[in-house]
């Protein structure tokens, strides 16, 4: 028996011991590092607010210019900028954009008639100025002269009309078509003047217009209603190449009509994994990285080589309460709102990467009306539930996606824990995004869940795109995306009026009334507005964060 077998067993046991020891040592080392991190930043929230000033007031500063470089004396130390993004373009078609990051890249090449400035005000780009008729049915745009496309052709009213016609061409696959609203037709008045007629007043029209990217007439004639694959715009950068799944390369347009960029070439590297983007940034392979893993926020922030950006996004995260059975009672829905400590969730689960919802829409939207948040109060919640005769033996099902929103699974678990504290039992139902979408687009009586963790992001920063599409009774699922199945004729009327009202003050007043009603009715558990987590190297300066908080523009960026 004392042969090889015995020896190998000893070796085996030794190996096992070594493995265990190694595991323990490794974890202890990692833990120590973790301990240091926690010691070095006592309050993550406080340090966050210093990097991103919190917006206050109604329409607020949403574009942060990291460093304003207006002097022409600036020269960039490096000619090539490398940016890590997470998604590969699905389409390059200017009239078929679906993904914000993709249009972010393309908007360095394409331009639109109007644009937003840092304060969220509309500013002229390809249109020098514009006029709106008092009845809100006619819009006149006076185009900028001497603007040339990258293919040499000139921008004029015919080109813009062709673009608008193509936007509304049912043969073109354009998921955002309805954003521009009830356009009747576009008419060329003279070579540099175009008039757009609406079928009925549509208040968000101007704020939606930046979605319309303008390409040249040659391209439109060449592709017709087929998907455009040649990227020709008027913007500060020219399109060079797209290697599918790898990178997109843009080069400076030296004939740009406006202020010319400092950096010659931008390479957008497509890196789907957040942790790989972080690794690329840490290794110095890229100068800017989009959408990094929130668990590493502290680490990047403490690294002196990087600037961390945490802009507020246009995405509100909420729980749509399915209004049936006990949940049809507004007192129960209010109770659920009082039961959850949003501040604690933001600080601990989201690493501070969110702001507590104090309205239905994000603070930089038109129509934002600050409300009194439902403060965490479990006693009050419990009392409201008892008043409403809530059946505590009933188990509520909370459906949530995983990997879609920031820490979505963890947030769902925290909510489950908070609700169990007031005696409401919750069962979690986790789904990947495609099956999630399939199971939520159903009529109320066919849904097999009671609570739904959902996010709503609107490209156009206007309350219409949040309130109307979630709370107008015509938009209830499965016809629309109104997952709360909200039905209130007064709100319906207010939202319809607000969509048509061209007087901004009156419109704001309408949204104020609607928000107050909805807020008190609590069809949602109002949670928070997500923030993004981006980072750049310290020497990269001058880039701007677009009003939606998600897109970054490098046309004035430079390396110092």
């Amino acid at each position, binding site marked *: 028996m004392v042969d090889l077998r015995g020896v190998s067993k000893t070796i085996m046991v030794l190996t096992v011991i070594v493995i265990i020891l190694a595991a323990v040592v490794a974890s202890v080392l990692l833990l120590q590092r973790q301990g240091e991190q926690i010691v070095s930043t006592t309050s993550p929230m406080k340090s966050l607010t210093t990097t991103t000033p919190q917006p206050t007031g109604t329409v607020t500063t949403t574009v942060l210019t990291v460093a304003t470089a207006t002097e022409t004396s600036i020269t960039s130390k490096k000619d090539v900028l490398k940016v890590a993004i997470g998604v590969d373009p699905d389409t390059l078609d200017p009239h078929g954009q679906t993904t914000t990051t993709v249009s972010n890249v393309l908007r360095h090449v394409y331009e639109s008639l109007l644009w937003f400035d840092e304060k969220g005000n509309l500013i002229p780009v390809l249109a020098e100025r514009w006029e709106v008729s008092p009845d809100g049915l006619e819009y006149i745009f006076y185009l900028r002269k001497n603007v040339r496309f990258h293919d040499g052709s000139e921008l004029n009213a015919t080109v813009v009309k062709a673009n608008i016609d193509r936007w509304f061409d049912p043969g073109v696959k354009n998921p955002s078509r309805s954003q521009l609203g009830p356009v009747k037709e576009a008419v060329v008045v003279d070579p540099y003047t175009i008039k757009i007629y609406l079928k009925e007043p549509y208040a968000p029209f101007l704020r939606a217009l930046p979605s319309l990217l303008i390409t040249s007439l040659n391209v439109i004639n060449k592709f017709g209603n087929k998907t455009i694959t040649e990227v020709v715009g008027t913007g500060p950068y020219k399109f060079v190449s797209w290697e599918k799944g790898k990178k997109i390369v843009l080069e400076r347009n030296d004939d740009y009509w406006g202020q010319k960029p400092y950096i010659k070439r931008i390479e957008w590297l497509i890196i789907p994994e957040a942790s790989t983007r972080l690794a690329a940034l840490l290794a110095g392979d890229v100068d800017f990285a989009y959408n990094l893993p929130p*668990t590493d926020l502290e680490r990047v922030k403490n690294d002196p080589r990087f600037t961390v950006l945490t802009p507020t996004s246009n995405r509100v995260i909420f729980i749509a309460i399915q209004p049936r059975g006990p949940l049809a009672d507004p007192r129960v829905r209010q109770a659920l709102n009082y039961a959850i400590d949003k501040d604690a969730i933001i600080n601990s*689960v989201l690493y501070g990467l969110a702001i507590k919802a104090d309205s239905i829409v994000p603070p930089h939207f038109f129509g934002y009306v600050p409300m009194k948040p439902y403060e965490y109060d479990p006693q009050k919640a419990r009392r409201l539930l008892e008043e409403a005769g809530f059946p505590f033996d009933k188990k509520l099902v909370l459906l949530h996606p995983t990997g879609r929103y920031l820490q979505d699974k963890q947030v769902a678990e925290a909510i489950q824990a908070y609700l169990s504290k007031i005696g409401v039992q919750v069962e979690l139902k986790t789904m990947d995004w495609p099956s999630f979408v399939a199971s939520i687009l159903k009529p109320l009586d066919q849904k097999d869940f009671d609570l739904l963790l959902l996010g709503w992001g609107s490209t156009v920063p206007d309350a219409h795109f949040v309130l109307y599409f979630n709370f107008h009774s015509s938009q209830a699922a499965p016809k629309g995306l109104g997952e709360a199945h909200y039905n209130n004729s007064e709100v319906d009327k207010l939202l319809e009026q607000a969509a048509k009202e061209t007087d901004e003050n009156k419109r704001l007043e309408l949204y104020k009334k609607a928000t107050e009603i909805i807020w008190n009715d609590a069809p949602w558990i109002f949670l928070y507005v997500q923030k993004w987590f981006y980072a750049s190297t310290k020497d990269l300066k001058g880039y701007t964060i677009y009003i939606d908080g998600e897109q970054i523009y490098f046309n004035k960026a430079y390396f110092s």
Partner: protein
Amino acid sequence: MERMRILREIEEAKRKRRREIWETFKSSKAAYISLYIVGFLIFIALFGPVIAPYNPYDFDLSKAKMPPSLSHPFGTDGLGRDILSRIFVGARYTIGISLASVAIGAFIGVLLGLFSGYMRGLWDTIIQRIVDVMLAFPTILLAIALVASLGRGVLSLIIAIAVSTFPVYVRLTRGVVLQIVGEDYIAAAKMLGRSSLYIMFRHVLPNSLSPIIVQSTYYMGSSILIASSLGFLGLGVPSPTPEWGSMIGSERIYLFSSPHIVVFPGLFIMIAVLSFNLIGDGLRDALDPKMRTYFRRG
């Protein structure tokens, strides 16, 4: 008189054999130590809620992701729950699931194997072809498919693991039974006119038990692994139940920022699986060293 003497001798031989088995088992230090570890784990599984310092469901976000300290020896998880308490309470889920699934899997597998090996013929062919198909399926894949169709929960987890592991017992038992059926004492029993059922359960089964015991011990370890893998994939016991695999799965995003959340449940899974495997090795050597090639560690 003669009969009494023979019976006594048989009794004596049995006792001697048992002592031998125990001595051989004890001579393997690793297996012996593992026995204590498993004993300890079973103790935790039984008394987890009593000895846990905190309520494993009590959360406090202000204490989330705290590294190990005196008040929380294993730290706290993403929701600020005490990890030590969760591991203690979770033991009964993890170990209970693997125990139950092994029991069910072994029961079905042994019955089918016994029947198949003893009866031979058409039934044997049918059972063996079914087993072939099931063995060709990766265990974890089959388990995933089963959980997906049964829905999440402790019971469906047990069924999924039992169903996806029983074919191995069928194969194993059949192989041993085929050997035993050729032995003289079976022929003698047949000649005495004993019924097939009697011979199967009275003579064949007890004599084929040792490899089954060894296999079951190995499978205790692998069931823990399968249960944990399913938990990790989000198909295990639904949150907030602190099953070890689910503890890792739902908190795996903290692997780099707060490793203790994942490392401690992982360590417990590793220790449990390792101990069961080492006990399996010890039992194998003690019970029947020749049978080595039969076993699959899964």
